[in-house]
């Protein structure tokens, strides 16, 4: 009977972070990955933040397979006839890079190899089909008709986690808390990408495409980011929402591609690959369902992801590292009961991970909001206000309430840091060209702060 101390199911960011940490602690670990190469089953939706990765692997920049260093971020609201966009360049990211684009097949494979190099045994091309459960305790896994035993099994096997389902920790999947993504990788020569996005070699751009109303597709969001010689363009929506509205997500992506702004960016490109993937969108996490007798869940398997700001991979890495800490403690105490593994929550609490995930649950309720004044209604309000604020005559009295409205609607709920600055900047620029610059500036400033104070209180 083959028996390891720990079996990690899934060699994605959570699984590799866990296996690497365990191997460094000298704990015998087997990683099972269903893809023949780790990462070939995964689809990235946005950029990769590497702060947590740097903590785990300080010299990771030496050989990390990356595409472009992201210095440009655009947030845009797309309408049929116009686009409102806010572009920011972060040159700090050149000096101290933390945001990149990467292909998952290269990135995940690199990460899993780090774990294997540290001593974990990596088995690829093997799908876990069931758990072996004895008296309510997980004692091993069934993988492609083989049986493997372990003191503890870590489920890091993604959204459709077999470990979560078979252990009874997370048997139900709720389509309301789930986003479907469809993406196209469009090949273009690097110099063309550089020119279109105003970049130099090795630097990249990411864009959030917030759909207001294109061709009657009122709701949905998109993502666009640059790789070395391709553009990744994707569309997202909640599964329950698509069902309710009877919308084909891939048709929505086509609509997005035909929007004048987007079509100019992807002009003359060739489709390199068509992809789809699912990701949890908050709302699913129940701390007491992250551990059981002989079993722990990390990453997407435990819904420990915060997808709203693109914090999927970092939270997965963090949860994998914390699972490893828990297992180290369990090994020392020779106890793998749920009572001991409950310490996982303490380790998670020592990070900001659970706070981030809870926060994203609120966001999820806000964005998926079917039947409530969630995503659709608020998105409309934001875009309406946003549109008006750009068109209004700043000399008119309507200006202040609109700006305030924008601040309240957008600033409070919707990407505060990005959207707060146009209010101030907008005022500054408008006034700069005015003959009564000083006077108006002081009036606007005073009035704005009065309004702000009044509404903040």
């Amino acid at each position, binding site marked *: 009977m083959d028996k390891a101390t720990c079996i990690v199911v899934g060699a994605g960011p959570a699984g590799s972070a866990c296996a690497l940490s365990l191997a460094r602690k000298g704990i015998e670990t087997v990683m099972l990955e*269903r*893809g*023949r*190469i780790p*990462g*070939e*089953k*995964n*689809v*990235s939706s946005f950029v990769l933040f590497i702060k947590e990765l740097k903590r785990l692997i300080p010299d990771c920049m030496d050989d990390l397979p990356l595409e472009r260093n992201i210095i440009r971020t655009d947030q845009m609201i797309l309408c049929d006839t116009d686009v409102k966009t806010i572009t920011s360049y972060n040159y700090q990211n050149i000096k101290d890079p933390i945001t990149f684009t990467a*292909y*998952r*097949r290269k990135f995940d494979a690199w990460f899993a190899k780090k774990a294997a190099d540290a001593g974990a045994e990596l088995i*690829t*091309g*093997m*799908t876990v*089909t069931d758990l072996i459960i004895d008296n309510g305790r997980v004692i091993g896994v069934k993988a*492609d008709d083989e049986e493997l035993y372990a003191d503890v099994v870590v489920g890091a096997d993604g*959204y*459709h986690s*077999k470990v979560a389902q078979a252990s009874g920790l997370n048997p139900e*999947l*709720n*389509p309301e808390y*789930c986003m*479907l993504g*469809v993406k*196209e*990788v*469009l*090949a273009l020569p690097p110099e063309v990408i550089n020119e279109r996005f105003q970049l130099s070699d090795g630097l990249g751009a990411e864009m959030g495409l917030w759909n207001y109303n294109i061709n009657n597709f009122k709701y949905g969001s998109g993502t666009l980011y640059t*790789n070395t010689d*391709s553009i*990744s363009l994707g569309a997202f929506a909640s*599964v329950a929402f*698509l*069902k309710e509205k*009877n*919308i*084909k*997500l*891939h048709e929505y992506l*086509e609509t997005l*591609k*035909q929007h004048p702004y987007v*079509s100019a960016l*992807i*002009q*003359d*490109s*060739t*489709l*390199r*690959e*068509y*992809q*789809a*993937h*699912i990701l949890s969108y908050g709302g699913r996490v129940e701390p007491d369902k992250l551990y059981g007798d002989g079993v722990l869940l990390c990453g997407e398997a435990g819904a420990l992801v915060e997808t709203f700001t693109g914090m999927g991979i970092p939270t997965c890495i963090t949860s994998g590292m914390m699972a490893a800490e828990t297992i180290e403690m369990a090994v020392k105490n020779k106890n793998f009961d749920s009572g001991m593994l409950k310490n996982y929550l303490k380790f998670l609490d020592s990070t900001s991970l659970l706070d981030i995930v809870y926060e994203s649950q609120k966001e999820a309720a806000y964005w998926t909001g079917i039947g409530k004044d969630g995503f659709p209604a608020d998105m409309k309000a934001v875009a309406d206000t946003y549109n008006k604020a750009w068109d209004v005559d700043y000399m008119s009295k309507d200006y202040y309430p609109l700006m305030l409205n924008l601040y309240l609607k957008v600033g409070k709920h919707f990407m505060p840091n990005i959207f707060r600055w146009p209010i101030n900047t907008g005022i500054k620029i408008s006034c700069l060209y005015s003959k009564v610059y000083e006077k108006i500036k002081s009036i606007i400033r005073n009035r704005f702060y009065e309004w702000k104070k009044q509404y903040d209180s």
Partner: protein
Amino acid sequence: MSGKNNMTVDEKMATVKIKIDKDPHITVNYELCKKCTTRPCLIICTAENYKWDEKKDDLIFNYEGCLECGACRLICPEGAIDWSYPKQGCGVKFRFG
């Protein structure tokens, strides 16, 4: 072939590498599908693997072109879809995920 537009889903699917499993990883209970009135699987599948044959009044399903997102299993109101991941390294192989 231009990435601009006008590509059908079938043409797009030609860019995806898939090692086909001999055993279907998704099985559908067609009897339950006949009872279904909403058929959300027809809209949710981005690979358009679920189609409705109007003449035979029956579902046409192809597991071979599956992108493994699993949205169909979440959305099926009849519980007619038995879904699992392909075994032994089979299934989709994304090169540029």
